[in-house]
């Protein structure tokens, strides 16, 4: 560990907060329908889009109508993406947009990929540069990077409206929220980030793969592509699906320590800002700060544990005789699967940033993290992505936990629980409880199925013996259920014997189980969150009295952390023991 390593983590938290507060104010204005500084530019296109889409933005929707629009739109996106991916070698695809003539992946892999990108998971059972055409990356995957992010954000906005709403059952209009999210939030930020990334060395071209005659006379082929545009929205929308197989470890996706820092900010900026937007929209900024503090405490804890564990090094390194302390000119630590330019702190922090959110991008091999270092992403996923979480998904998920915490707090003081002046009743608590438990249920069910069946164990990599094999399987279904998409990447659903798409085949069991895992665990919680919004909308607000439990102070932060940790630990502890914790507690090699 080094002073600069710790400084990186602290400065990151500080800069993030400083940027998120003003952006939160901007978001609140956008979703409250107020004029913002971009209105003169995007007001026209906004009205034009409503006309083209035949949408009346003033039509108010209750939760069922809102959910219906959301589901139908997502389904349309899924179908189009599936068709695009399955026809990438069809006659109408221009050669320059599929220069290597990649064939389509088989149906089962494509089912997984289409489900993955529509659900903001971006789990990848394919390798970008050896199977995906430029056209598929652009009109297929990049588009869902935007839309899945937009869908996540609007659910959070709808839930806030339900919490605030005092009359009627309206949660707003899905189409209006989606169009505004894309125009006023994602488009300007994404374009800005993309240009900054190109200026630092992320590539942006449609060239054929480079054919290099190396210094010693060997041949090297270098993959190319329109990376910067996809990279920007991949981070900003907490998507995480890499253009290349090695994602943000690839120098063309993440060329310097600066881009590494910048990409981490891009991942967390919207989830963090939404918390402040929540505070403004509910008229209770202090509660926004309380939720932000809850997230930040857990985030910093995770970053510290990961950094300490990775700086310590792994049992395999020590057994091989390698010394892992820092000395002049050497980072030390567990550098297996990590890039020199990011070092230990830059890799550990990136890992935490992308696993607390639903981003799932990786700049180092999580499978090669030490037992405890690897337990951190496990723990982040076990907390159901509420530590900042995905764009929108993080906020609506933690709000379900807030509801639960208020309920438990109410039980402790023996009063009907109240939240922002609204009485919480059996219906909301039941819906919130189901919304919280459904994701862990999907993760554990799929893990059990995958580890207990022969077809499931097919996907475990050969080198992953003992607890590592269990970790691979568990992480796969936990990550897909939480729509994260990071992986213990030895686990596979797609086998490419010749490093090309020809002759490759999918592992049907893993592809289908994972696909259903993602779909179920994405849309079930969305429906529960919207149902909670519907149940809260229109409830009468009573002024806070002397006996009202406060939900905006340090006590509540502690209570909320307690509830999140308790639910996560009770659900996942037995499974975690079998994998990463066993490895973290022993120096035994398997």
């Amino acid at each position: 560990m080094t002073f600069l390593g710790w400084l990186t983590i602290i400065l990151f938290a500080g800069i993030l907060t400083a940027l998120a507060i003003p952006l939160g104010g901007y978001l609140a204005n956008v979703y409250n329908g107020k004029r913002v500084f971009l209105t003169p530019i995007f007001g026209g296109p906004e009205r034009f889009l409503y006309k083209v889409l035949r949408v009346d933005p003033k039509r108010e929707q209750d939760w069922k109508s809102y959910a219906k629009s959301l589901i139908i739109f997502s389904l349309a996106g899924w179908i189009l993406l599936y068709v695009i991916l399955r026809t990438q070698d069809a006659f109408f695809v221009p050669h320059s947009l599929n220069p290597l003539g990649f064939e389509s992946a088989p149906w089962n892999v494509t089912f997984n990929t289409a489900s993955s990108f529509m659900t903001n998971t971006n789990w990848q059972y394919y390798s970008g540069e050896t199977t995906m055409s430029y056209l598929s990356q652009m009109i297929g995957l990049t588009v869902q990077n935007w839309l899945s992010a937009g869908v996540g954000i609007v659910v959070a906005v709808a839930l806030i409206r339900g919490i605030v709403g005092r009359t009627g059952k309206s949660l707003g209009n899905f189409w209006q929220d989606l169009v505004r999210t894309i125009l006023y939030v994602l488009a300007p930020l994404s374009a800005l980030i993309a240009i900054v990334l190109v200026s630092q060395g992320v590539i942006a071209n449609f060239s054929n793969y480079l054919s290099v005659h190396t210094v010693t006379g060997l041949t090297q082929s270098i993959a190319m592509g329109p990376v910067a545009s996809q990279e920007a929205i991949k981070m900003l929308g907490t998507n995480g699906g890499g253009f290349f197989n090695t994602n943000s470890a690839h120098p063309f996706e993440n060329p310097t320590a600066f881009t590494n820092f910048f990409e981490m900010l891009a991942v967390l900026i919207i989830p963090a800002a939404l918390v402040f937007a929540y505070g403004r929209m509910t008229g209770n900024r202090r509660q926004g700060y309380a939720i932000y503090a809850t997230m930040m405490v857990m985030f910093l804890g995770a970053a510290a544990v990961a950094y300490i564990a990775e700086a310590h090094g792994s049992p395999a390194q020590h057994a091989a005789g390698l010394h892992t302390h820092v000395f002049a000119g050497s980072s030390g630590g567990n550098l297996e699967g990590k890039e020199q330019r990011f070092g230990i702190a830059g890799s550990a922090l990136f890992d935490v940033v992308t696993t607390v959110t639903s981003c799932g991008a990786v700049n180092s091999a999580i499978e090669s993290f030490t037992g405890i270092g690897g337990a951190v992403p496990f723990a982040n996923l076990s907390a159901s992505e509420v530590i900042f979480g995905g764009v929108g998904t993080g906020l609506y998920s933690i709000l379900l936990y807030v509801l639960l915490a208020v309920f438990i707090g109410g039980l402790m003081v023996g009063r009907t629980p109240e939240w922002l002046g609204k009485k919480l009743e059996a219906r909301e608590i039941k819906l919130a409880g189901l919304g919280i438990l459904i994701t862990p249920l999907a993760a554990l069910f799929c893990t059990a199925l995958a580890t207990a069946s022969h077809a499931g164990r097919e996907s475990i990599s050969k080198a992953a013996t003992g607890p590592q094999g269990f970790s691979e399987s568990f992480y796969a279904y936990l990550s897909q259920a939480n729509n994260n998409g990071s992986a213990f990447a030895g686990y596979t659903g797609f086998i490419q014997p010749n490093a090309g798409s020809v002759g490759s085949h999918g592992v049907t069991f893993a592809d289908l189980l994972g696909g259903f895992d993602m779909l179920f665990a994405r849309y079930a919680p969305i429906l529960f969150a919207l149902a909670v919004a519907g149940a809260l909308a229109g409830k009468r607000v009573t002024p806070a009295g002397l006996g009202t439990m406060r939900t905006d102070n340090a006590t509540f932060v502690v209570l909320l952390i307690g509830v999140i940790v308790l639910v996560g630990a009770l659900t996942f502890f037995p499974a975690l023991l079998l994998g990463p914790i066993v490895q973290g507690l022993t120096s035994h090699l398997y």
Partner: protein
Amino acid sequence: MRRDILTSVIGIIVFTILLGLVYPLLVTGIGQVTFPGNANGQQIHVGGRLVGSKIIGQSFADPKMKNGKVLEEKGVVVTEPDPRYFQTRPSATEGGAYNAAASTFSNLGPNSKATEEAIAEHIKAYIELEGPYNPGLTAARVPVDAANSSGSNLDPEISPANARIQAHRVAAVRHLSLATVDGLVSRYTDARGIGFSGEPGVNALELNLALDRLTGVTH
């Protein structure tokens, strides 16, 4: 319901055009105009020939010969490090090291025997190559980056400590003074990002090309 379906179908087409065509073309166009070098992968040409990308690692090795023929194993050319050059980190991409058309993680687990074996092998190879020029070089002194594969397996950089050790070999083989080689190492060491983030690293390709220029090696 019908209204939602209609809007969804129009919506997905409109958004696909805007976000899947207009947006990437715009970004790529701006990138090509304002930062053409970066947008095209920081290609390095020597004598009109493309010798690599500045930010993609490559293998500085020669094909192993046996009876005048290039030795192959399972269709992959067997190579051995070229002692004139600084060596990049161990890489295990498919079809030989540093295959930049198929980046891949090594996925070596922290408690796996396979990991220990791989690392031990890298340490052994490193000491075999550098030991003769660095008397007393033991496993304990091998920098971690020299024995661990990187994330992308395409890491263009090595640690300064690793470069200082290799400098002894390169200086001896090229008949240069150690101070000259060390000077070049310093020149091609990238500082930490924004002054505090990440680790300094030595760009192996730039360093090796500078050495070739200095000693008049042509490609």
